[in-house]
C-alpha cells in the first residue's frame, strides 16, 4: 500500500512537474515567439495600399543579411554578418559575401556562390573596378575575382586603423556619391587611418567624423557625421544619416567647410529634420526583456528625481538602413522619398523630404497615407529590416536579418538575459522585393560591364538613379578621354537636369571640366545643377562673379552653397558679399555658421563692415547677438595679436551705433575663445579671470585691461 501511495504521489509529482514544464514552455513560446518560414513571415507583412512584397531570397541561400549591392551586370551580392552580437576572435569571423543567382529566372534566388568567407566584421559592399570594396573594421578591403570562378582571389587592404570593438558602431554602409566620392559611416569612433596605396601620406585621425575617399585619385578625408548605420545620398548629392534613436539627420555642411579653420565654437553640422519627433507605429509588442528593462530604468529615473521617461515601444530605438528612392518602379510621388528601417519596431518608415523655404534643410514628414500606419510593418517579431537597396528594376529591396533578438547583450540585465538566445535566427535571413501591386518582377537585363561608351552615355539618361550611377562610375573607371566631347554635348543638349548633373561629374572624373561649361551650369534652370556647379566652380577663378551672383538665387540651398564656396576664391569682394548674406539670411543658424566657417567671415573686418549698412548694430536682435558672440569667440580662440587689437579698438570706439548688449556679448565671446586658445599666456589668464560683464563699466574695464595686454 505504501508503495502504491508512493507510486501515486511520485506519479502525481511527475505529472505536476510535466504540466508546469509544459506551461513554462508555452509561456516561453508566448514570451519570445518562435520563427516562421519565409512564406509564413511574408504573410505577416502589411504594406500601404498599392504595394506588395515578394521573397527575393531566403535561407539557406542567405543568412543574416546586412548589405545588398547589384554590380554592373545586375548580379546581386549580399553581405552576411552571422557573428553579431558577439565579437569574433581575430581571423575567426564567419562573415561572408555571396553572389546570389536566380537560375530559373523566376524572380527568386535559388543558388548562392560564396564570393568571400571568414571576413571578420564585414558590413557593407560597393562594386568597384570589377571587384567589391568591403567595410570590415578595422579595415576597408578590396576583393576581386580575377579568374571568373565567382570567388574572390585577391584581397587588398585599402584602409586600416578604424575602430573595432562594437559591431553596432563601426565603419560601414559604403555609398557612391554623385560627386565621385565614396562615403562611409564611422560613427565618430576614434582611429588613426592609413591608406595603403599612399603609404607616405600622413594617417588621418577619424575621431568625431565619418569618412570619404576616392580610389581614382587616391584621396581620403573626414566627412561630417557621425552616422551610425544608415546612410543615403539623394539625386543631387545631399547626404542623410541616422543613429539608433534619431531616425533621420541631414548633413547640412560638409566637413571640408566647417574645418577650414579650427576655431568654430560648434562644428556640429548635421541636424535631425523630422517634423514628427521619433515616433514610429509598430505592430509588435515590445519583447518581455525590453518591457522589463524599461520598467527598471524608469524606476531608477524616478528614484533619482529625473524627469525622464524611456519608452519600450513606438519610439525609434533601432533605426538602421536608409535609402532615397530615385527610380521609376514606384509611382512618381515616391521619387525623392527616404525609406528608413527600424529593427526593434519590425518596420519600414517612409519620410517625404521637402526643402524648407527658410533654411537650407529638408523637412521630413509622413506621407498623408502614413499618419496611421507605417509604409511597411510586420507582426512577426523576428522581422529585422537592416538595410535597403533600390535595384536595377526600380524596386525596393528590404534586407531582413531575421533574428529573435537584436540588442547589445551586455545592455540587458543578467536576470532578463537568462532565457535569451541571441543567436536564434543566425541560420536564417530574407530579402524582400517591394513593388507596386500591379507590377511583376523583371528579369535581369543589365549588361554594362563591356558596354560601349555610347551605351554608357545613353545610360546617363536612365530614369533610375542606379543605372545612371553605374554608368557614371564605369566611365570614371575607364578613364577614356575620347568621350569628353560627347559628354559635353550631352550636358548642353539634355533636357533632363539629372543627366546634366551626371555629365558634369563624368567630366570632373575625367579632369575635363572647363570654365565655360561651369558658367553655363551656374545658370542652369535646375537648382540642383546650380548647387553642384558652385562646388565645381572653385577650380575656375574666372567664374567668381557668376558664383557671387548666386547669393541672390531664389532657391535657399543654392544661396547657402554659394555662402560656403565663395571664400574658397580668396577674393577681396567676398567679405562684403558675406555681409549681404547676413543681412538676408542672418536669422538662420546654418547661414551664420557658413559665414563664420571661413577666414574672411570670421575676422574683425566683418565687424567693421557690419557698421557700414548702419542697421546691424541698431537693434540687438537675438541672432545678431549670437553672431557677435560666436565671431568674438573665434577671434579669441585664434588669439592673433593684431586681430584682437583691431577687435578691441573697434569695441572701445565711442560709437552710439554699438549698444552695450553687443559689447557684452563680444567680451563674453572673446573670453570664451581666449579660454579655448592653446597659447594663452599665464598673465592673460589672470586678466581673463578678473573679467566681469555685468554692466557697462565692467565691460569698459575689461576692454581696457585686455588692450594693455594686446
Amino acid at each position: 500500500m505504501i508503495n502504491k501511495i508512493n507510486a501515486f504521489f511520485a506519479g502525481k509529482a511527475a505529472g505536476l512537474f510535466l504540466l508546469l514544464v509544459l506551461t513554462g514552455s508555452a509561456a516561453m513560446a508566448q514570451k519570445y515567439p518562435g520563427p516562421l518560414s519565409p512564406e509564413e513571415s511574408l504573410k505577416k507583412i502589411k504594406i500601404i495600399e498599392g504595394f506588395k512584397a515578394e521573397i527575393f531570397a531566403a535561407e539557406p541561400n542567405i543568412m543574416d543579411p546586412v548589405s545588398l549591392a547589384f554590380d554592373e551586370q545586375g548580379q546581386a551580392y549580399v553581405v552576411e554578418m552571422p557573428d553579431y552580437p558577439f565579437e569574433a576572435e581575430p581571423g575567426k569571423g564567419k562573415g561572408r559575401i555571396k553572389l546570389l543567382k536566380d537560375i530559373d529566372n523566376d524572380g527568386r534566388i535559388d543558388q548562392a556562390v560564396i564570393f568571400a568567407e571568414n571576413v571578420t566584421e564585414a558590413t557593407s559592399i560597393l562594386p568597384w573596378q570589377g571587384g567589391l570594396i568591403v567595410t570590415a573594421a578595422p579595415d576597408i578591403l578590396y576583393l576581386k575575382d580575377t579568374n571568373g570562378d565567382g570567388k574572390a582571389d585577391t584581397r587588398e587592404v585599402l584602409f586600416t586603423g578604424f575602430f573595432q570593438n562594437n559591431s553596432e558602431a563601426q565603419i560601414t554602409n559604403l555609398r557612391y556619391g554623385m560627386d565621385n566620392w565614396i562615403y562611409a559611416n564611422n560613427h565618430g569612433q576614434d582611429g588613426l587611418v592609413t591608406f595603403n596605396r599612399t603609404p607616405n601620406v600622413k594617417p588621418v585621425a577619424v575621431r568625431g567624423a565619418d569618412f570619404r575617399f576616392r580610389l581614382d585619385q587616391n584621396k581620403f578625408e573626414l566627412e561630417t557625421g557621425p552616422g551610425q548605420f544608415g546612410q543615403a545620398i539623394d539625386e543631387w548629392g545631399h547626404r542623410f544619416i541616422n543613429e539608433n534613436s534619431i531616425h533621420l539627420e541631414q548633413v547640412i555642411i560638409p566637413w571640408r567647410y566647417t574645418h577650414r579653420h579650427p576655431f568654430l565654437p560648434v562644428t556640429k553640422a548635421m541636424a535631425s529634420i523630422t517634423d514628427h519627433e521619433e515616433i514610429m507605429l509598430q505592430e509588435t509588442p515590445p519583447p518581455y526583456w525590453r518591457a522589463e528593462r524599461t520598467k527598471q530604468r524608469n524606476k531608477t529615473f524616478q528614484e533619482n528625481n529625473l524627469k525622464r521617461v524611456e519608452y519600450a515601444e513606438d519610439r525609434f530605438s533601432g533605426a538602421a538602413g536608409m535609402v532615397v528612392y530615385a527610380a521609376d518602379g514606384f509611382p512618381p510621388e515616391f521619387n525623392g522619398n527616404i525609406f528608413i528601417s527600424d529593427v526593434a519596431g519590425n518596420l519600414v518608415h517612409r519620410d517625404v523630404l521637402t526643402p524648407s523655404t527658410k533654411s537650407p534643410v529638408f523637412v521630413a514628414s509622413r506621407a498623408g497615407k502614413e499618419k496611421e500606419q507605417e509604409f511597411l510593418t510586420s507582426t512577426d517579431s523576428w522581422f529585422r529590416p537592416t538595410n535597403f537597396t533600390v535595384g536595377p528594376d526600380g524596386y525596393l529591396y528590404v534586407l531582413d536579418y531575421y533574428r529573435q533578438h537584436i540588442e547589445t547583450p551586455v545592455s540587458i540585465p543578467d536576470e532578463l538575459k537568462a532565457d535569451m538566445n541571441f543567436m536564434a535566427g543566425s541560420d536564417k535571413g530574407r530579402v524582400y522585393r517591394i513593388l507596386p501591386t500591379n507590377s511583376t518582377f523583371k528579369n535581369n537585363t543589365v549588361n554594362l560591364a563591356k558596354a560601349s561608351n555610347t551605351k554608357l552615355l545613353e545610360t546617363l539618361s536612365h530614369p533610375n538613379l542606379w543605372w545612371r550611377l553605374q554608368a557614371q562610375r564605369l566611365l570614371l573607371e575607364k578613364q577614356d578621354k575620347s568621350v569628353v566631347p560627347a559628354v559635353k554635348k550631352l550636358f548642353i543638349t539634355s533636357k533632363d537636369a539629372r543627366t546634366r548633373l551626371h555629365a558634369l561629374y563624368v567630366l570632373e572624373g575625367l579632369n575635363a571640366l572647363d570654365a565655360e561649361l561651369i558658367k553655363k551650369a551656374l545658370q542652369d534652370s535646375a537648382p540642383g545643377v546650380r548647387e553642384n556647379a558652385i562646388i565645381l566652380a572653385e577650380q575656375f577663378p574666372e567664374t567668381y562673379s557668376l558664383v557671387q551672383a548666386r547669393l541672390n538665387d531664389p532657391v535657399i540651398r543654392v544661396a547657402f552653397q554659394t555662402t560656403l564656396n565663395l571664400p574658397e576664391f580668396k577674393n577681396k569682394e567676398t567679405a562684403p558679399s558675406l555681409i549681404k548674406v547676413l543681412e538676408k539670411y542672418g536669422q538662420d543658424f546654418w547661414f551664420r555658421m557658413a559665414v563664420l566657417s571661413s577666414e574672411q567671415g570670421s575676422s574683425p573686418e566683418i565687424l567693421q563692415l557690419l557698421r557700414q549698412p548702419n542697421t546691424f548694430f541698431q537693434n540687438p536682435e537675438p541672432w545678431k547677438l549670437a553672431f557677435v558672440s560666436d565671431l568674438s569667440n573665434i577671434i579669441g580662440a585664434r588669439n592673433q595679436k593684431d586681430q584682437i587689437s583691431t577687435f578691441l579698438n573697434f569695441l572701445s570706439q565711442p560709437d552710439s551705433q554699438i549698444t552695450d548688449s553687443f559689447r557684452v556679448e563680444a567680451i563674453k565671446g572673446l573670453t570664451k575663445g581666449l579660454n579655448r586658445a592653446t597659447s594663452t599666456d599665464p598673465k592673460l589668464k589672470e586678466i581673463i579671470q578678473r573679467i566681469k560683464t555685468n554692466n557697462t563699466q565692467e565691460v569698459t574695464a575689461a576692454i581696457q585691461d585686455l588692450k594693455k595686454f594686446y
Partner: protein
Amino acid sequence: MNKKYTRREFLFKNIAGSAAFITGGWLLTSFKVSQTHPQTTNQAKSKDSVQQTPKSISQNPCEDLSGIASGEIEKRKKFAYVTISPNPDSRCGNCKLFLPPAAGKPCGACLLFKGTVQESGYCTYWAPLE
C-alpha cells in the same frame, strides 16, 4: 493607432508567462535539470565569482574604479566607454542613461554599468534625452 494587441493582453501574457516560467524554473532547479546556453557565454559571472579590482588612488575621482567588479569594467570596454566624447554633441551628460552626480558628489553614473561616469564621457550606446 490600430494595434494588433492590447496592453492588457501583453501584461497578462507576460505576468502569466513569468509566473509559469519562474515556477517551471524552480522545479527544474529542484529536479537538478539544467539548461545551457552556449551562445550566451559572454554574460557576466555571478557576483560571488567576480574579481575585485585592486584599490588604487586615482588622480581624478571620476576615473577611480577601485572596488568595481572586473565584470563591470569589462562592460565599459564592451561599450567602448571613453572619458572624453569623440562627438562633443553626444556625451554622457546628454544621454538618457546617465545619472547626474548626486548632491555634493563629483561624478555621475550610468544605467549600463557600475562605477563612476563623467559627463564629458561617451560610449557606443549613447541615446539622446527624449
